[in-house]
């Protein structure tokens, strides 16, 4: 690599560099003694996220390759990075009061959030299995610590331990699959893998094994059934802002690599994995929807709900093609708004002695706080997929992609599961609106929390009412990658 190529590569990866630099700055800033420390840390982190977002938007345009083709900034990467920035900014905002309540206000907390962001950005941009793996591990390590941040809380510690062990297992499986692929294809470059796979006439047992290991590793990260066991415990035990972050950003990052690996590279051997993914998607929706019905803790319920949502989004992967890819991307963007919104509501309830994560804690909220109850109602109906909210359009577009490919029976199963899932969302609406309040509500509403709630609700409603622009962005992003990658390079 000559000097010019190195400089070019550095420019292309500026956003990642900014975020990592920011993480280090925040780490040191955390050592300051100041009454305003938390505001400074939040502000600094937000500034770096904004700088990275600005730098990323500067890279928009035709796909850019860096570091000898192992790192790419294309439509897919840009779209997912936008999701990560949004999720990170919202997470920072909803953390402000919570870290005080839980006594975990330290510089490392913010630094780790930024490290996780950097890891996810690398995942989205990786075009080489090793680069992807590096990003994956960077964000995973940051999350292991964040999940266990309430170290005096038994549940948080338990969650972190489970997450570390199962995360390590899944990373190991993924790595094993990766090594098998390398052995077969002789390269870890996704394009190279695609080229060598398309040359194979009949997939041998080693290839099947390799693909299955890759799938398993990734489905672990997605929390798809039967690799979902860690999700409820981790979601319940982790600090609530981290749960929110995990549920939207980490999941989106996992989907980013699923889309990249499966739909750009190993699509050549689609017949090996497509049936497995279909079965897993259905199981994931079923388990998520049915088990959520009996939960009494709202964080556990949202954990199962996120499993169900992951199953639904997997259907977009099954559909494939431009519509399939962009439907998953749009789904994840919308999910970010509505799910962070719902977690912001949970944080709003967390005040002093009130934990606010039991469903009964919401009894009668609408009587005393009609505005915040209405916001919650919008998030819940959006999660349930009822129009005119964005959640409906997300599901609708997945169904369009799915039926376009002829998977009508799968679409019917998906909507029936959705009807089941609707019950546990409207049950919370019921509790809020239709029961008399049993206690006095003292909401922990800080200006930052208000901002995040308003951003989330605006996104949830706006994408529902004018989905056109967002849809175009997703479609352009998806189309951009396809043009740049296999289709362009193989022909």
């Amino acid at each position, binding site marked *: 690599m000559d000097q010019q190529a190195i400089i070019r590569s550095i420019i292309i990866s500026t956003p990642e560099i900014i975020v990592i630099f920011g993480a280090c700055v925040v780490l040191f800033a955390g050592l300051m003694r100041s009454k305003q420390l938390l505001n400074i840390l939040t502000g600094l982190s937000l500034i770096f996220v904004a700088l990275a977002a600005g730098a990323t938007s500067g890279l928009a345009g035709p796909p850019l390759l860096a570091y000898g083709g192992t790192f790419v900034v294309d439509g897919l990467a840009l779209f997912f990075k936008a999701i990560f920035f949004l999720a990170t900014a919202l997470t920072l905002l909803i953390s402000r009061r919570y870290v005080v309540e839980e006594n975990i206000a330290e510089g490392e907390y913010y630094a780790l959030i930024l490290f996780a962001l950097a890891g996810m950005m690398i995942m989205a941009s990786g075009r080489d299995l090793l680069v992807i793996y590096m990003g994956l591990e960077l964000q995973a390590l940051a999350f292991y610590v964040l999940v266990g941040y309430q170290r005096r809380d038994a549940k948080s510690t338990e969650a972190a331990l489970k997450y570390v062990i199962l995360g390590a297992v899944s990373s190991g499986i993924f790595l094993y699959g990766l090594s098998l692929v390398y052995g077969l294809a002789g390269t870890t470059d996704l394009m190279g893998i695609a080229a060598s796979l398309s040359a194979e006439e009949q997939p041998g047992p080693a290839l099947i094994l390799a693909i299955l290991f890759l799938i398993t590793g990734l489905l672990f990260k997605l929390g798809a059934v039967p690799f979902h066991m860690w999700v409820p415990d981790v979601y319940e035990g982790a600090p609530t802002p981290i749960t929110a972050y995990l549920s939207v950003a980490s999941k989106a990052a996992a989907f980013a690599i699923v889309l990249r690996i499966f739909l750009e590279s190993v699509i050549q051997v689609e017949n090996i994995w497509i049936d497995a993914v279909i079965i897993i998607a259905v199981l994931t929706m079923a388990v998520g929807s049915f088990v959520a019905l009996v939960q009494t803790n709202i964080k556990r319920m949202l954990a199962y709900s996120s499993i169900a949502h992951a199953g639904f989004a997997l259907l977009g992967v099954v559909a494939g093609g431009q519509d399939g890819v962009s439907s998953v991307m749009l789904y994840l963007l919308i999910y970010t708004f509505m799910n962070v919104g719902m977690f912001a509501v949970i944080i709003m309830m967390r005040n002093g002695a009130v934990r606010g994560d039991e469903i009964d804690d919401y009894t009668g909220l609408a009587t005393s706080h009609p505005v915040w109850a209405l916001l919650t109602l919008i998030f819940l109906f959006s999660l349930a997929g009822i*129009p005119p909210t964005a959640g*409906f359009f997300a599901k609708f*577009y997945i169904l369009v992609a799915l039926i376009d490919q002829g998977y009508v029976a799968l679409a019917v199963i998906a*909507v029936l599961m959705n*009807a089941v899932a*609707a019950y546990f969302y409207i049950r919370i609406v*019921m509790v809020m*609106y*239709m029961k008399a309040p049993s206690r006095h509500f003292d909401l922990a509403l800080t200006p930052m929390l208000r901002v995040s709630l308003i951003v989330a609700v605006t996104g949830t409603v706006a994408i529902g009412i*004018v989905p056109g622009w967002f849809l175009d962005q997703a479609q352009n992003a998806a189309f951009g990658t396809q043009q740049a990658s296999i289709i362009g390079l193989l022909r």
Partner: protein
Amino acid sequence: MAGFPLLSVIIFLPVAGIPLLLLLKDDEAVRWAALAILVIDFLLATWLVLAFDPVTPVMQFQERTVWVAALGISYAVGVDGISVLFVFLTALLGWICVLASWKAIDVNVKTFMINLLVMQTFMLGVFCALDLFLFYVFWEAMLIPMYVIIGVWGGDNRIYAAIKFFLYTLAGSLLFLVGIVVLYFVSGRTFDILALMEAEIPFSIQTWVFLAFLVAFAVKVPMVPVHTWLPDAHVQAPTAGSIILAGVLLKMGAYGFLRFSLPMLPDASQYFAPLVIALSAIAIVYGGFLALAQDDLKKLIAYSSVSHMGFVTLGLFTFNTNGLNGAVLQMFNHGIVTGALFLFVGIIYERTHTRQIADYGGLMKIVPIYTLLLGFFSLASMAVPGTNGFIGELLVLSGAFAWGKATGAVAIAGAMLSAAYMLRLIRRVSLGPTAFGNPEPLWDLDRREMVAILPLAIFVIWIGFYPMPFLNILDPSLNHLLMQVVGR
């Protein structure tokens, strides 16, 4: 005049009025504001009917704007002879609902009225939509305010009823959604209702889509055996909720058949007509018998709705002019009459706080005007000549006999049943010894209630004696529809 988006104004005026309500502090002012908004909306709807040209089946007052270009979704609205009637009915019942809730709703008045306004926008949107996606958005979005209306201001068992209503309707609607997307691809990627009506769809696909639509519409109508949410929802809902349910929501199922199943899936409609007619016949008789056995005023009317809506679906699937005309007219009639009957139950419930028929008796002596008007609407419900019910039912019956003698005979039996349960209701509530002591605080209809009831009464007599204006509006559209079903 040209270029004025009359339909959009009618649809969105109620929602646009919400900020006004939010500014008001006083409950009384909120009521007046909601009433004013809905009365203006009603006047606009009246203007729409008057300006409507009844000689053509073409969609009028069309507005089209691209909504989601990438998927070919547009915001398209328009009305033909069928939908214009239901826009009018919805707008009429809208302000009547406000009057019906004037005293009955005394907690969270503002929230209630906002829900009512949102509901009104969605309902009007359903009848105006010319884009399937837009239709579905309105159709499904209605669940939110209705769920809240039943669940918050309903009776003792309101939560169960609200959740049951929500889940039944949702499950049906989601299959409808899959059907819509299938149609979208089969017809070359369009959600345009008018284009879909012209599309040639292979029979095998028609049957599947028809079944998906059938589930959604059957839940909404409701047809036996998916009618069980209705009695619960009706009984638990506040009066306004019952009026909306009976007057407008139930019509939407039948409207779905008219707008989608028949013209878009003509072959499947004919193929499945015996099934639908059999289900309708069962609904007519079964609903009638169930109504006969009820001790609760609202339940009785709810089951009578099942029976009456059976006539509607029966008429729709006879595929002849009389049957169709009768069915659509009967939809309108049922909205007027059943809406009025629920209003009456609400009025007496406000005074006595009981809906048990056994608690009543001899109302004639205490509240004569109330009893008289109740009797009048009961007669309309059992289709006595001179009321609107007679015209509609007669047309349906003649259509049913043209379809098959046995079908006609079953329908006649249903008509007789309706006389049995309505007369029994009148006898037990109005006649006989009075069940209330002398100092009972019962008062007759006040001015507000009269204002709510009179327009409904006018329509009962008007259609009963001179239905031609209504049939004239319907005729071109229904003939066009019949052409689409049978003509090819």
